């Protein structure tokens, strides 16, 4: 047995981790990771919850069932029915989850494993391009995004960004006072002169908002464009940027389901190609799950 002091210990650990990772890459890991995604970050409707819990039970008892298109058809249908019912209220990442469940269903129809992997890889690439270039297009067309006004408002009014704002030097009391003023503006028993409020902001907030805007926009454009080339070297840069995006974005932005979905797509694309990137995507997935700790409360001391 290797002890802590044993010089062979760390290298043995690395070797074993490498072997474990190779097994994960050779196996049907995308399938299981998608099931994890659906169970933990799926739709909240009773229909979907019932379906996904039954699916999990079946797969735990008979793991080979995860390769059956019928199982994925059940989940895809439950997701689609929920989505149609909530079509104007469902967040964009719920649409993405639904698409990905259908990809799993279709990919498991052929018995040929190579074809299945190709379908998964093709769709993973497509959806990463679709998400990032679609988001960039909407941001470019938006009247408030490119000016930095959108992120400035998020920093000044959105509770979810208060802890992040505090970390980068924005006084949380600004947000509290701004929210009080905004609540007055929308309160039906209150009349605010000229329907206008002055928000408390400063040069530092402007600067942070501008920086976040530029980072968010250009990283998304770069990921989408790099993936379009389908070349090993551009894919490698896209992987690095996507990993950077996942690790940094989903700490302040509490859309963890989206973060895990991006990690699954990235892993699906990289698993055949790179041991290092595969490990990094799995790590990113774990990081997004860990980001759910109430660190914002700790930072703000609430």
């Amino acid at each position: 047995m290797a002890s802590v002091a044993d010089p062979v210990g760390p290298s043995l650990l690395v070797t074993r981790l490498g072997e474990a990772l190779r097994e994960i890459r050779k196996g049907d890991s995308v399938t299981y990771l998608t099931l994890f995604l659906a169970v933990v970050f799926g739709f909240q409707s009773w229909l979907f919850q019932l379906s996904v819990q039954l699916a999990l039970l079946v797969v735990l008892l008979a793991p080979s069932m995860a390769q059956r298109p019928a199982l994925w058809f059940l989940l895809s249908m439950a997701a689609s029915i929920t989505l149609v019912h909530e079509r104007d209220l469902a967040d964009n990442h719920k649409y993405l989850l639904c698409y990905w469940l259908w990809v799993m269903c279709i990919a498991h129809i052929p018995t040929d494993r190579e074809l299945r992997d190709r379908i998964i890889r093709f769709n993973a690439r497509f959806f990463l391009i679709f998400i990032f270039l679609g988001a960039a297009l909407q941001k470019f067309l938006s009247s408030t995004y490119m000016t930095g006004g959108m992120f400035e408002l998020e920093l000044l009014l959105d509770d979810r960004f208060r802890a992040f704002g505090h970390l980068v030097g924005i006084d949380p009391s600004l947000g509290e006072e701004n929210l009080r003023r905004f609540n007055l503006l929308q309160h039906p028993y209150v009349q605010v002169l000229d329907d206008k409020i002055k928000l408390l902001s400063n040069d530092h907030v402007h600067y942070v908002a501008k920086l976040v805007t530029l980072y968010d926009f250009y990283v998304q454009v770069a990921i989408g464009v790099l993936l379009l080339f389908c070349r090993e070297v551009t894919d490698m840069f896209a992987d690095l940027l996507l990993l950077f995006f996942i690790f940094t974005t989903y700490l302040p932005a509490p859309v963890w389901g989206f973060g895990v979905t991006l990690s699954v797509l990235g892993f699906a694309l990289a698993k055949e190609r790179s041991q290092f990137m595969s490990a990094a995507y799995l790590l990113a997935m774990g990081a997004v799950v860990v980001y759910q700790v109430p660190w914002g409360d700790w930072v703000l001391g609430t």
Partner: protein
Amino acid sequence: MTRVPRIVRWAMFCTIPLIAILIAARQLYLHATEDLSTWKGGGMGMFANADNLTRYLKIYLVFGDDQRHPLLHLTDAQWRLEDRALRYPSESNFRALADSIRATAWWAGKEKIPLNVFDSTGQKIRDGTGQFYDLYPAHPRTGPEQADIDIEYWKAKYDPKPLALTGIDIEYWKGSYDPKTMELTAALAQTFVSKD
């Protein structure tokens, strides 16, 4: 390796991406024509717009005396309809909210609430002229009764006659922020009027 016909193979690769593109096109169209939020509807435009923060509704019950009483408290189902109308301010979503409000009997609180006037820094300037009852959802309306406010209290304190609900006004407001002046200005984008 089983041979899969070319058309089937093509369908396996491209069906879901094509559906995703069509849904995104619908979202872009509805965003342009009916102000569907960029955060919703499958267009992948999250964080493209601050409309998750700056949209709000003001809802009023209109009675026979033509006075509009603000509605602040809704049932859980009505809050969901309100949220839906905010994200997708279409006529059908406003109508669904108005119909639900119409199908509810409302009780008035004991005190009237003054309409106070504030300045842009959130400081109270003065009491406004209007005073309104705080209205609470009581129960679903069951009969053809016209009066919606807690009649016993209303009769004793305000008006001997039952007040007939004549309409519901839903105001859809949008705020726009100017980083240079740091002012957030709200504008009434649309008023949905539902009359009896």
